[in-house]
């Protein structure tokens, strides 16, 4: 039996979550200077809190994905100090239980894709710790947003590893939550104690599910397309920034650096982007991907071909962020519409 619980209103749900904020870090989507990100609810102004309902229930992801809460853009994992000629090494681990409210189905799948990389042997401990510590409350998208392509990627309504599903009952205004994992059950219990009530039914979303692109077909079409002059053209347009990769919920590349000041320092990892020339530059200066064409190809082939070969799935969830924010309008469609086959007449 999967328990369904209800809050009378979104406000009540937020209040209940607030009550739990001594135990969990609770984050939810809001805006800051008009830019949409997940932020801790305890740090929000009243104005920002008033944005949470709309953005949580909206069928379109915010600009910032939930990824930074599991794989931060910068993360120190070793600290060292020199004291009396001796080196003291510390490993700060500060992962706290966290609740992410208003995640989207595409976010859930993006994490499942990152799991394939980070949770396979050798397991990435920094990520695993946070993944285990995170409870995802996922909006059931009813329609697709303007730039959403989740249907193409078979992600729409795909809420496999969500801990709780969330839906609004329009007639009563109730917010319904359905637990579907152990973590979700525990949180549901806690929310019941904070005044939410059991509910007999959950409202399933009305979205008609479209047939998704077939990953092997795409991969094959991409491989056949490798020598096309299209890539040279696309690379001439791309300005080689990192917008598409830094906002992508499935990109997971990082760099490891040391930060040193006199007697102390830290080792941290920080997001890297395959669109940067120094991403593949080796000590000694050799660069196996010397041109922008190599780099643009790498990004698209990693998502649409190599990931299929290595992990059995397309490495894109169709969230649309890259296309929306690319300064020169390059999106996944820009490539998918050109690689031929069925994809073309989409």
């Amino acid at each position, binding site marked *: 039996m999967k328990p369904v619980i209800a809050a009378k209103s979104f406000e009540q749900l937020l209040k209940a979550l607030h009550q739990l904020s001594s135990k969990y870090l609770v984050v939810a989507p809001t805006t*800051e*200077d*008009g*830019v949409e*990100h997940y932020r801790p609810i305890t740090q929000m102004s009243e104005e920002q809190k008033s944005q949470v309902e709309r953005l949580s229930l909206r069928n379109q992801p915010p*600009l910032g994905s939930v990824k930074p809460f599991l794989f*931060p*853009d*910068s993360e120190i994992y070793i600290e060292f100090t020199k004291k009396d000629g001796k080196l003291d090494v510390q490993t700060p681990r500060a992962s706290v239980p966290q609740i992410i409210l208003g995640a989207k189905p595409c976010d859930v799948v993006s994490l499942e894709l990152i799991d394939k990389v980070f949770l396979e042997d050798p397991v990435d401990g920094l990520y695993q710790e946070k993944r285990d510590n995170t409870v995802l409350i996922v909006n059931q998208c009813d329609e697709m947003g303007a*730039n959403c392509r989740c249907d193409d990627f078979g992600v729409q309504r795909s809420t496999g590893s969500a801990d709780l599903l969330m839906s609004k009952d329009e007639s009563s205004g109730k917010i319904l939550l359905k637990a579907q994992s152990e973590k979700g059950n525990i949180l549901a219990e806690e929310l019941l104690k904070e005044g939410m009530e059991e509910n007999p039914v959950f409202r399933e979303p009305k979205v008609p599910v479209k047939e998704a692109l077939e990953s092997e077909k795409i991969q094959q079409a991409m491989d056949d397309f490798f020598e096309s002059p299209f890539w*040279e*053209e696309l*690379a*001439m*347009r791309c*300005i*080689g*920034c*990192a*917008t598409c990769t*830094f*906002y992508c919920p499935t990109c997971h590349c990082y*760099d490891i*650096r040391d*930060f040193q000041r006199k007697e102390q320092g830290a080792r*941290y990892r*920080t*997001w890297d*982007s395959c669109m*940067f*020339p*120094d991403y593949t*530059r080796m000590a000694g200066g050799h660069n196996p991907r010397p*041109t*922008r*064409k190599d780099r643009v190809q790498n990004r698209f082939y990693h998502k649409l071909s190599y990931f299929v070969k290595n992990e059995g799935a397309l490495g894109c969830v169709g969230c649309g962020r890259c*296309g*929306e*924010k690319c*300064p*020169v*309008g390059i*999106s996944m*469609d*820009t490539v998918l519409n050109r690689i031929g086959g069925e994809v073309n007449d989409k």
Partner: protein
Amino acid sequence: MCKITEELQQIAAELLKEGKVDLVLGYTKGEQEEQSVPCIVTQPEDASKLIFDEYSEKALSKYLLEESFQDKKVAIVLKGCDQRAFKLMQDESRLGREDVYLIGVECPGMKWGEDLSPFCLHCDYRTPAKEDVDSLLTGADIPEAMQGEPLDHEDSFTDINRLEKMSKEERFEFWKRQLNRCKRCYTCRNACPVCTCRVCVFDRENPDYIDRAKDQMAQHQFYHVIRAFHVSDRCVSCGECARVCPEGIPLHLLNQKLLRELDKFYGEYQAGIDEVPTPLSHANADEPDFFGKEGKA
């Protein structure tokens, strides 16, 4: 189809047909609503893709410095600010005038969200000078706000006036909040037509003073202060840096504030119109000496 677009397509087709250029770099309609994106046309029959409208905001001149454009004969569409950037590259010996065919276009002013760009409202160089380009296309549909005299700096960049009135602490809080969102994706730098250093200081391998961490406020400040100074006197006011920032950081307020101050110290200077050197790239013996009182003169 507007007059400029029509003529542009004709010229592009001719240039390609006659083999005068290998490619024409202009704009075409993007995948999203109200979006125009850079477009490279190499075949005469594709010239019909080209358009020019109030969303053709990208600074195309920047592409001319890219490696993939080097061994090709290029024709490029330039509105006023973009031609200024081209001129600056030329003056700074980054490229030669004779290598490129310039198609100047009269600019109707570019959008800035729903409104017109404050840069454009202030712009008095919408159309490149005839003698500076190879073809000049005019006849744009000029919106009312762009007709008549351009606005003063104070009247177009009103947000700077607001920031100037803040207390130091308020201002610091404002920039702290804004810059804290910076991801150092370098989109602002890569889109900027005057960020043209051969090796950017932020791309150097392991300099001691810059760090890659994205959660270090000081590092973001460092990046932005350095960049703001590097572009301050050379900014051609295209507005791209602020427009492309995915985090909506109002970078133009930084460099336009600097420009405002530079104008006061050194007299008005417009990069890409006035002669080089730019105010900050040289020093005159009779200049005010800001460091003298600290004994560093």
